[in-house]
């Protein structure tokens, strides 16, 4: 569904590659987490997968980026958008302001896609239910809290049913309960097998528990790619600024104090931690 090879991108007017020698292949229905320190290139990767690089943010680009059958370098964003959805961090700026209610706001993207009129309301309501906003359907989007607006932003893009969903820190303003519900929705979407999801996130604990695969970006390069457990234990030894989950840290401390044996790989989730204690 996504094939990136030899991608290099440098924003116009800068002197450093924002993305460098990136190779990444993601299959249909995969849920891939992208981690990395601030400025490592996470957002740039998101923008590239959805076509905003190089069409909206210009610069010099090399390599091939194929997403949902589109050659990103040759397909305008207005065409990409029916197959690739993008949700970014600031939820407030993602409210179109063109509609008066939460329901209409979600339907806005569908109207623009030309979805049949009889389908508009059910599809918008589906997305609202999935994100737990169905009770707010008649409210003005501007009266919602930050967390609710963030869920609205996700619902609005989800309703468009893209083949590939790219989310750039979609839970930055959510509390643990809200974060959990978003991760559950994304996991369900991916498991249904029709949606391929790439999301960047700093909340390692959630990623470790929900994604199949973790990718690390460091200074614009893709430095690790694999199951969360392998990648996160590898990250402990590297200067990537990724951090570790609380379970990994606890286990690491336990190994140092000889409570745990150093032979087994370090756990990254609660389940794995409990297992290693057995």
């Amino acid at each position, binding site marked *: 569904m996504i094939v990136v090879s030899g991608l290099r991108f440098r924003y116009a007017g800068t002197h450093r590659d924002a993305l460098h020698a990136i190779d990444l292949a993601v299959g249909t229905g995969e849920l891939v987490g992208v981690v990395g320190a601030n400025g490592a290139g996470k957002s740039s990767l998101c923008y590239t997968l959805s076509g905003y690089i190089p069409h909206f943010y210009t610069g010099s680009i090399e390599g091939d980026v194929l997403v949902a059958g589109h050659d990103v370098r040759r397909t305008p964003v207005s065409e990409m958008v*029916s197959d690739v959805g993008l949700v970014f961090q600031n939820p407030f700026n993602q409210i179109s302001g063109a509609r*008066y209610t939460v329901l209409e706001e979600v339907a806005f993207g569908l109207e623009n896609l030309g979805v049949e009129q009889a389908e508009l*309301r059910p599809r918008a309501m589906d997305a609202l239910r999935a994100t737990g906003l169905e009770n707010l359907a008649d409210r003005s989007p*501007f009266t919602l809290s930050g967390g609710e607006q963030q869920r609205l932003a996700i619902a609005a893009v989800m309703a468009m049913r893209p083949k590939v969903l790219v989310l750039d820190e979609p839970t930055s303003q959510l509390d643990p309960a809200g974060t959990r519900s978003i991760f559950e929705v994304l996991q369900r979407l991916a498991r249904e097998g029709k949606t391929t999801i790439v999301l960047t996130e700093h909340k390692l604990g959630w990623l470790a528990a929900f994604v199949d695969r973790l990718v690390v970006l460091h200074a614009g390069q893709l430095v690790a790619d694999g199951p969360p457990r392998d990648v996160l234990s590898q990250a402990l030894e590297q200067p990537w600024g990724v951090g570790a989950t609380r379970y990994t840290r606890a286990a690491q401390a336990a190994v140092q104090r000889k409570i745990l044996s150093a032979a087994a790989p370090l756990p990254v989730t609660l389940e794995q931690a409990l297992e290693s204690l057995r």
Partner: protein
Amino acid sequence: MNDKALPRPVEARALHPLTSLTLMLLAVVAGAALPETALVLAVYLSLLVPLAALAHRLREFLRTCLRVLWPFVVSLVLIQGFFTPGPSVLFRLGPFSYTLEGLGVALLFSARLLVGLGAATLLTMITRPDALMRALVERGLPNQIAYIVVTTLQIVPTFQARARAILDAQRSRGLETEGPITTRIRALAPLVSPLILSSLMEIEERAIALEARAFTRAGPRTSLVTLTDTRLQSAARWCMLLLGLAAVAVRLTVWRAL
């Protein structure tokens, strides 16, 4: 981000937005064309007031009209009275004389202003801007223009909230915003520039968000809201249009001198 959003105008299901728009335009044109204060006031009382009552918004309507109108009336009555020459002098103030003709002109202008103001106020009360824009887009208005109008109306309260936040932030850093006029002027730059800069930076993200919602996609669009139009309303719109044109024609010929 902000707790004050634009209150949603009551949906006037009975009237197609274009019918309301035409009605209001007719009121404005009639108000401008009619030569007598009494006739202009009659437009207000016989057309706008009953409609406001029908929409159950009469009190709000009258209050808004009065609140906006009175400063204009005061200045018109003062200035026109002294500056319109005429034979019937009501009183003198030093070298200036206040004429009855001037008072008449002031009242006529005030009445016209009242009609224009009332029409605009009523339109916002009985028509949702998005429905009106939808109707205009169906008739060929570019989508982008409709978007700008609706968004601007919705973003104003947010903008005010941000302005207040900046004011508080700068005050907490010790900026003097009260006191003599010189202090206030000096405080203007640190208040206005962050407001403008932050809005400009926001535009980039808003543009991305709009793209992400397929706003620039080519091809047919659909709409969640269906506007109901009837033959009667369509006919009424044409009649009103003709009536408006007739009013302009009469104004330019028969009532030319008035």
